[in-house]
C-alpha cells in the first residue's frame, strides 16, 4: 500500500469524525473531537503501527491546541490529530496515555506548562516544574497571548 492509499483509507474510515484536514507530502494534519480522540489514537497506534513522536500544545487567540504527532516509520508519514480546547480558563481533554503508554511524559508536560487537564491520565502530576523554585500561580507557558 503506498502512502496516498494509506492516507485515503484513513480519511475514509473516520469520515465525519475529522475536520479541517491539511494534506502535505508525508504530512496529514487534522482536527478531531475530544470524544473521538482516544479511538483515533488507538487506531493510529495499534492498528496502523505508528509511533508517537511527541505532542505539542500551542496557545492561539481563541483556544489551546494540542497536536499529537504520530510517525508511521515504514513510510515516513506523519499523522497529526489536533484538539482545539475552546475553554481556555479550564482546559480539559481526554488523555491518550491509557491507549498509548509513551504519551505519559508529554501529557504531564502539557499539564505542567499549559494547564491542560488530561482525564484518565494514570499520573496527573507536574513533570518539569515540579520542584520549581517559585510558587507558580499559573502554568509557565499559559497566558502569553492576551
Amino acid at each position, binding site marked *: 500500500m503506498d502512502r496516498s492509499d494509506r492516507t485515503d483509507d484513513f480519511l475514509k474510515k473516520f469520515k465525519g469524525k475529522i475536520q479541517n484536514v*491539511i494534506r*502535505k*507530502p*508525508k*504530512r496529514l*494534519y487534522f482536527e478531531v473531537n475530544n470524544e473521538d480522540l482516544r479511538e483515533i489514537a488507538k487506531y493510529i497506534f495499534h492498528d496502523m503501527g505508528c*509511533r*508517537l*513522536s*511527541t505532542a*505539542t500544545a*500551542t496557545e492561539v487567540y481563541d483556544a489551546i491546541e494540542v*497536536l499529537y*504527532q504520530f*510517525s508511521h*516509520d*515504514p*513510510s*515516513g508519514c*506523519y499523522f*497529526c490529530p489536533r484538539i482545539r480546547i475552546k475553554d481556555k480558563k479550564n482546559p480539559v481533554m481526554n488523555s491518550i496515555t491509557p491507549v*498509548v*503508554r*509513551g504519551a*505519559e*511524559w*508529554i501529557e504531564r508536560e502539557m499539564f505542567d506548562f499549559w494547564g491542560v487537564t488530561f482525564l484518565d491520565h494514570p499520573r496527573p502530576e*507536574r*513533570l*518539569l*516544574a*515540579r*520542584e*520549581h523554585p517559585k510558587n507558580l500561580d499559573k502554568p509557565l*507557558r499559559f497566558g502569553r497571548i492576551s
Partner: protein
Amino acid sequence: MKLNENINHVPVGPFHPLLEEAEYFNLTVEGETVVDIDMDIGWMHRGHEFISEQKTFTQSIFLVERICGICSTSHPLACVHAFEDVDNTEIPERAAYIRSLVGELERIHSHLLWLGLAGHFIGYDTLWMWSWKYREPVLQMMEIISGNRNHYGMMRIGGVARDVNPDRINALLPILDMLEKKVNMIVAAAKDDPVLKSRLKGVGVLTKKDAIEMCATGPTSRASGVPGDVRADEPNDAYRWLDFQVIVTENGDVWDKLVIRLLEMLESTKMCRQCLDKLTTAKGPILNDVKEISAGEGIGRYEAPRGEVFHYVRTDGTNRAIRHKVRAPSYVNIPTFKASCKGIPIADALITLASVDPCYCCTERALRVKGEHPNAIDFLKQSRDKTERIRREIHGH
C-alpha cells in the same frame, strides 16, 4: 501499611553522573535486586522552546545548536528540516552531502564517547582510553570542515554555511583512512572480548513490546528488534543516495546496544567516504537563498546518535516561529528504564542507565556518597567488581 524490611530506596541524583540534565532516579531495591524505578526530570529546564519563539529563524538555529554539546549537528539539522518542511524547500546536492558528512562524523564521535564511558563504568578503562584517543581525529576533521571542534555552525535554511573545498577534502581523506582502520580495530576488539560479552549479555533487557509501547527510538529500540531509523524511513539530505545498512538486533540487552553502536560506526565511516568521494565531483552552490517562510506548519527530524530528534515549527508568515517544539531522543528513551531496570542486580543498574546513551558531563560527581552513610552504595565500584569477578572466572587469574 506493613513495611517490608528488605525493601530499600536508593536515590540517585538529582545531580546524576550519567545524564546531561540533572535528574533524579529513585531505585527501589529488595536485597540486591532492583524491583522498581521512578524518575523525576526538570532540574535543568532552560526554556529553549520559549526563547526560540522570541528569535528569528536564523537565530533559532544558533540557539538549538546549544541544547546539547554532543548533538550539536542533530538539533540544528532537525530544526532546518522543520523550517524547510513548511514550504518544501529543496537544498542543493552539494549541501546535502556536506550535511550528511557532518552528521555521520558526529555519530562516530558520539558513539566513541559512549563506548569509552561504558567501558569505564564496568571497569574497562583500556576501552575508554582507546575510544577517546580515536575520537580526537574526528574532532580534528570537524575542525577542518567547520573551524570548530564542537558547535559547528554549519546548518542554514536551504543549505549549509561553509563549503568543503578540494584542499579540505585532501586534508580529510588521510585522517579518514586512519580512523577507519582504528574504528575497525576497536570494533573487533570489543566484539570479540569474552569478558565484555559475559558482563553485558542479558543485562537490562528491553523487550520489543516495551520498546514499541514506550515509543523508544534509536539504538535503544533497534537493539530490541524495532527497525526504525529516520535516515532510512524518511531519507533526506544525502541519505537518499548513500549506500548504508540499518543495524537491528533482537535481544534488547546492553550488549546488543553496544553491538549496534559499534556496527553503526563502521557504517558511518563508509558513508563519510561516500560523501567525500561525491564532494570531489559534485559541483554547484551550497545554499539556496530562502527569503521568507510562509505561514504553516513543519516537522523536521534527524536520526541523532541517540535516536530521533524531533522539531515542530508553526509559522505565521513573519520572521519567527510562533511555536517551536523540540523533543530530544532521551526524552522518550529514559522512560524505558521502567521496563529495563526491573529485576536486575544493583551492580548492573549503572550500565543499564548508561545504555540509552544519555549525555554525560559530570561523570564522577554524584557517586561520592560512599563512606558518608553506613548504607551508602558506590555504584561504580559494584559495577567494576562484577566485571572483575567475571574476568577471573574466564581467565582464571
